[in-house]
């Protein structure tokens, strides 16, 4: 039989849960066995009890792990009933988390120089990638895009992780340059020698980045977001169309080689 997902149901206790930017919240919860099992770019799914409009778990990436404390950090956008209910969970609140889910970024030690591109709450798995690469002493720059300045989060942390350049762009120019992350990638790829691009954000953005990478023959990995009912390969609700058919994002992703994805 194929290998079942390593995901398990773990008890979790909220340690802190506060807004960090406009509509972005930062949640830290304690779940030691989950913390020990997650690798960069993987996800977990959290149950939000008491919200009738959210029966399935909410799938989330993580931004950092504190192995000593057994805690997981995630940064999430408040979008609808599920994430609103999540934002209402106070320190001490108990729930369960399911994970680890899927496979994360695949980062080859031979990578010369990496460009990471985060849009909106796509910052979350990008930050954990930056932390991993930083620990390995690798060379990477990060583009952080947001609608507006007040929605930008994580720049300090990216810098602290060891990023070379951290470039901020906003749609309205209220922080960093005015423009989109795709604009930045477009001007960077021809001049800078990247051999890997990692990206997470709105699908049109990732598609734009992927097309530029194809044009410049740079390897590109995209972290795809799909509505997920289970998160461990049982329901087929999370499919991404690829050149070898529909692939479930929860087991075959969420990180895909951009050239496989049929946009």
């Amino acid at each position, binding site marked *: 039989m194929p290998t079942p997902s390593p995901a398990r149901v773990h008890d979790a206790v909220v340690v802190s849960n506060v807004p960090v930017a406009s509509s972005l919240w930062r949640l830290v919860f304690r779940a030691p066995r989950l913390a020990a099992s997650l690798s960069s770019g993987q996800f977990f799914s959290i149950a939000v009890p008491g919200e009738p409009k959210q029966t399935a778990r909410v799938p989330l990436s993580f931004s950092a792990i504190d192995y000593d404390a057994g805690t997981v950090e995630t940064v999430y956008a408040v979008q609808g009933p599920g994430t609103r209910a999540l934002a209402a969970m106070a320190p001490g609140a108990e729930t369960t988390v399911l994970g680890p889910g899927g496979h994360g970024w695949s980062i080859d030690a031979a990578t010369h120089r990496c460009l990471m591109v985060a849009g909106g709450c796509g910052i979350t798995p990008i930050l954990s990638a930056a932390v991993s690469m930083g620990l390995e002493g690798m060379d990477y720059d990060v583009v952080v895009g947001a609608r507006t300045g007040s929605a930008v989060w994580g720049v300090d942390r990216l810098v602290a992780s060891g990023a070379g350049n951290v470039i901020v762009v906003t749609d309205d120019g209220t922080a960093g340059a005015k423009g989109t992350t795709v604009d930045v990638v477009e001007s960077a790829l021809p001049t800078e020698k990247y051999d890997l691009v990692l990206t997470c954000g709105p699908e049109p953005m990732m598609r734009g980045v992927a097309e530029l990478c194809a044009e410049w023959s740079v390897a590109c990995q995209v972290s795809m977001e799909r509505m997920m009912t289970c998160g461990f390969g049982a329901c087929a609700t999370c499919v991404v*169309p690829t050149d070898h058919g529909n692939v479930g994002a929860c087991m075959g992703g969420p990180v895909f080689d951009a050239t496989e994805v049929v946009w």
Partner: protein
Amino acid sequence: MSAPNMAVDLGGIQMSNPVNTAAGTYGFGWQFEGFYDVSTLGAITTKGCAAEPWPGNPAPRMCDVTSGVMNSVGLQNPGVRGLVAEAGEYLAGLSEKGCQVICQVAGHSVDEYVAAVELFEELAPWAAGLEINISCPNIAAGGCAMGSTPEGAAEVVRAVRPRTSRPLLVKMAPARVVDVARALEAEGADALSVINSIPAMAIDVHTRRSKLSRPTGGLSGPVLHNIAVRMVWEVAQAVDIPINGVGGVASGEDAAEFILAGATAVSVGSANLFDPECAPRILAELEEWVASQGVDDVNELIGAFECQ
């Protein structure tokens, strides 16, 4: 008091206990081996498979609604050969350990149902029974388009019945259940799975579009439980073949309601997805309830609802 007997006979499928799983919410079973020993369940029902692979519908295929979810998966499946290649060995082993494997059969037309049944006959000797899905709300042809009238439902079963001597279940749509159930019994169905998800619609009022890639999808989860219990009760009074109750089971009490209403077995569906460890818990709770009722056999409680 010794533990009560939990074994039941679902139209010729001998289950060690009444807990089954609902097609499409349990993959091919192996997905749950990380959570518990699947062979402890009475049966599992595998994702509906057709003779040839189907790609299913585009994303989004799922959205959250009040106390449930809606899906428009559209029976994505690798075809019978794909199922057997991926999971045949695992399912054969499961069946040896005493957990019955029910394979669900999908089709867009009578001919496709027949073709799929013939492939299962050939390739899946370990299958304890076949469940014909005439109730998928998410495909343009076949599915509930055929299963929502007594005539359409009967036609499918008339065609597949002669092709297999194994127990034949039929998964019913939540429409005209009494008439359809009678028609299915008359055509030789051995048991009925009542019910599939209920067609429903969720609109994003900002974009004015469906929250799914199709206008409608199938509603499932706790939200449809009490409707399903009513339908099981109606069908139980109309036919003599056993019923597999499906819809919103998330606790032993939910399962017990189906049994009291007349179900012989009970399938856990969406709850497997939200809470992957739930099926053995539901079985334990059900067993506790049977004992609490002062009977030594779950069969005494089938249909034991008391009309006042």
